[in-house]
């Protein structure tokens, strides 16, 4: 430390303020040993992060390839998961279907409500209320998913009976809402629970966006005699559209990868059901959590293979969300 400062003392003191190019050079190349060490440490951390991402992709792919190469059935289209059979047969068709269906249900329910809550907080609620409510929503985002899972399994599931019976009575003829037997531990219940879980994050990001709508746009609309709804529709929603889309995709990423809440609520099987109300089906993450304990080493490799698919899907969804956000630099949903 002393050596480094002494060395700098011997150097001729700069007589003028550093020009931008000099600043840039100072930022890029470090001359003092302390600087070099510090730069090395911090750059090393950044590189380590990249290395971890790469390692995740490489190791998952490697273990997955071990499993898939021994899979006697088509990995993408098979409706069963028997890794202890000789020869083993397993495929992700049911899991992919279940993951997509539960996430889509969650999105269909959560996005309109979350956008409405964000509008409520920014444009409808009394000022005194909106602060504390936003704070509570922040806290709710922090509730661990296993607690949502426990609540879903022990409180939400019994309460779904009424709704399911009603849906079956009036919409059962569609086939999608028919309900035959069993506790309502089905995709619809999972979707509703996931919707509740991703509500806070979509609300938070959308709220940030709506808050940044230029005041002038709104006032211009008001000055033309627009009602509050017309202000929202003509100036707030168009401005916030890309933000809402990326917020929804962040929520979608969460819903796709959610494990414990699905594992506690769903009563899984390895089949695709047309009805959302009958129990059955499964998701990637839920399948890993429920099958893990009885799986041998090969079974674990097979689960890793399904995890790799989930990893790729969430990577694509999140990458798309970030890309949409980064096109508008003014706000970033990353810190929500």
């Amino acid at each position, binding site marked *: 430390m002393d050596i480094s400062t002494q060395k700098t003392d011997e150097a001729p003191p700069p007589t003028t303020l550093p020009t931008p190019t000099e600043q840039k050079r100072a930022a890029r190349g470090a001359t003092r040993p302390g600087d070099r060490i510090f730069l090395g440490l911090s750059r090393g951390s950044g590189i380590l992060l990249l290395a971890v991402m790469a390692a995740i992709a490489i190791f998952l792919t490697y273990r997955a390839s071990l499993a898939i190469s021994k899979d006697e059935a088509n990995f993408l289209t098979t409706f069963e998961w028997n890794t202890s059979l000789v020869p083993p047969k397993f495929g992700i068709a049911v899991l992919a279907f279940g993951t997509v269906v539960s996430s889509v249900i969650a999105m269909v329910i959560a996005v309109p409500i979350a956008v409405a809550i964000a509008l409520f907080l920014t444009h409808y609620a009394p000022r005194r209320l909106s602060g504390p409510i936003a704070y509570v929503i922040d806290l709710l985002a922090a509730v*661990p998913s296993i607690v949502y899972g426990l609540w879903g399994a022990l409180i939400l599931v019994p309460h779904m009976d009424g709704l399911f019976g009603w849906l079956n009575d009036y919409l059962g003829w569609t086939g999608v809402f028919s309900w035959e037997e069993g506790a309502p531990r089905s995709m619809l219940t999972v979707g509703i629970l996931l919707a509740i879980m991703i509500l806070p994050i979509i609300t938070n990001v959308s709220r940030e966006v709506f808050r940044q709508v230029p005041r002038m746009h709104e006032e211009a609309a008001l000055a033309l005699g627009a009602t509050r709804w017309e202000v929202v529709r003509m100036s707030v929603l168009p401005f916030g559209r890309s933000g809402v889309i990326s917020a929804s995709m962040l929520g979608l990423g969460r819903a796709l990868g959610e*494990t414990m809440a699905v594992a506690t609520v769903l009563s899984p099987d390895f089949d695709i059901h047309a009805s959302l109300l009958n129990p059955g089906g499964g998701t990637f993450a839920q399948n890993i959590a429920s099958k893990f304990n009885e799986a041998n080493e090969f079974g674990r490799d097979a689960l890793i293979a399904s995890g790799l698919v989930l990893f790729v899907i969430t990577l694509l969804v999140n990458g798309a969300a970030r890309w949409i956000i980064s096109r508008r630099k003014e706000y970033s949903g990353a810190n929500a």
Partner: protein
Amino acid sequence: MSHAAIADKRPSSLRGASLPKWTPWAIAAGSVALGLGISAAAGLDSKIQWALMAGVLFVVGTYAIAARVEGRRQAKDRVATSFVWVAFLLAVIPLLSLVWATVQRGLKVLDVYFLTHSMGVVADFEAGGGIYHAIIGSLEQVGLATLIGAPIGVLTAIYLVEYGRGNLARAVTFFVDVMTGIPSIVAGLFILSLMLMWDMQPFGFAGSLALAILMMPVVVRSTEEMLKLVPNELREASLALGVPKWRTILKVVLPTSIGGITTGIMLAIARIAGETAPVLLLVFGNPFINNNPFEGAQASLPLFIYQQYSQSAGSTAAYDRAWAASLTLIAFVMILNLAARGIARWKAPR
């Protein structure tokens, strides 16, 4: 809000006819009464049907009345307002229910005995036992994860803000963003694949590694935001005095933003403390007290909740323990959250 205030001061001749302020309440009361009446007359017995009936009547009634007196546009505005309010109330119900259920059911068995005993000699379906082993496991795993994740996260953020130019920084920024979205179970599977390579048995530190992976991007993001808030004048003043850059960062930039950075780290801890999936895969769970995170299976609070729920075949005693452990976990997370926000306010640069 503001336009309403302005509008009120204008002469009334410039405004169209408007409904009095109590109209929504009156329509609400009317539609609830009518809804109950119709439902009772038609013999509907579900509460959901009653509420739905009342809701539909409210929307139709508001639209009809407002359209008649104030015009179509105002009517639409009123319907939109009521939809926004309903959405908010709809979201509050499950969240209130969650908090209420956890507190009410959790308090049944939560006492000092529960916090200081393990499940070592208690079968999952029996009453008694506690979560001491799970608390120990959680604290150790989360603590080790923080020791790994927090420094790397902060250093990466320093690199991005203070040094970061060019392709490497851009790549790090992008992948940190992507990394925040990794499902926790995938992080668990990654460490699991490493453990399969070297044929290792579950142990606490493996869980810590997965938790650290989940923690790093969160810390990077929040620290980055905080470092960006430090005024450039402070850095320039320090550099102008001939202070090396690394000392400027350590002595000027970090102390200025330490409050925000601490807040970010605490929020990240709160987030990983509730992660179950990686712990399930890597730490496995253990009813006995295991103080050594580097050898042997351990328990952890979220994992304890899951196993009490899933392995007890519907035993009430196990459910009670699961709720009590949930309450403990929520309390821990909430205290961390509140403390973090407290620090943020207390240390906020003025």
